[in-house]
């Protein structure tokens, strides 16, 4: 039985050899990923879609330069990120600078929010529409640096190394940003979970 990787490598070889219609098949499993990557960068559905199309076309045009040593998904994500960055640069000359200059060490409270009876929250709570809505909003409102890493890792489910590779940053930077993004979301979403812990119970007195 062929693994996904060998099927993919085979597809790529055939496309490059002239069976270009197969590119439709090659890209299909990653359509969602390309769109979400660009949504994370563009923060606008129409722009993300437009950029996603452009990124896919670009990946077709440059398929010959794909090296088998990286995963196709990582390579494709890198192209998508570059497309998004290019557009942001064009849209706002200063946008790129502010994105790149945002630094890790900034002040911030990355402490999760306590809640007591999460275990009592029925699973159906997760099915609630407003929770999904709140999550989408919270993700959209994450600082750019954190959102990009979070989307690649937790939405597209790339691993830490792949995320680092696609974004051109180190593994340790990915870990820091991911941690902060997750804690920020946990904090933001606690109010949407059934009940939060009342402060008077003095958890911190007990904990520390």
């Amino acid at each position, binding site marked *: 039985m062929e693994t996904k990787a060998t099927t993919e490598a085979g597809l790529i070889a055939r496309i490059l050899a002239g069976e270009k219609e197969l590119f439709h098949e090659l890209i299909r499993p990653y359509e969602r990923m390309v769109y979400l990557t660009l949504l994370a960068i563009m923060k606008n559905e129409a722009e993300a879609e437009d950029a996603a199309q452009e990124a896919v076309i670009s990946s077709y045009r440059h398929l010959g330069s794909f090296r088998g040593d990286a995963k196709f998904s990582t390579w494709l994500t890198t192209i998508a990120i570059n497309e998004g960055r290019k557009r942001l640069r064009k849209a706002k000359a200063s946008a790129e600078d502010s994105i790149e200059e945002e630094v890790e060490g900034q002040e911030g409270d990355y402490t999760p929010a306590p809640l007591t009876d*999460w275990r009592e929250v029925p699973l159906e709570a997760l099915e609630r529409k407003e929770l999904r809505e709140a999550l989408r909003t919270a993700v959209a409102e994450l600082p750019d640096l954190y959102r990009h890493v*979070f989307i690649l890792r937790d939405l597209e489910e790339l691993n830490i190394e792949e995320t680092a590779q696609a974004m051109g940053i180190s593994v340790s930077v990915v870990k820091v940003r991911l941690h902060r993004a*997750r804690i920020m979301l*946990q904090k933001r979403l606690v109010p949407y979970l059934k009940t939060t812990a009342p402060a008077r119970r003095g*958890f911190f007195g007990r904990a520390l």
Partner: protein
Amino acid sequence: MKLECKHVWEHISEYIDGAVDAKLREEIERHLEHCEICSAILDSTRNILVLTADDRTFELPVGYSERLHARLAKELEEADKEPRKK
């Protein structure tokens, strides 16, 4: 050494990813056994990640795939007329 809650929170993301070493993992797990607060924080964070990965949370625009493949088909057609770029 008894692990403090704050210490658990600092490692929560790596713990979820299974990226903490065996010793720390054991310490965290021992802490979680008796600490409801950290357990709840861990569970809620995990559930948020489950919800994030759920296809229904972040949906694609209606017709996205059709439009993408139509655009691609056009590109493939045009590529016939000129040689592929390197």
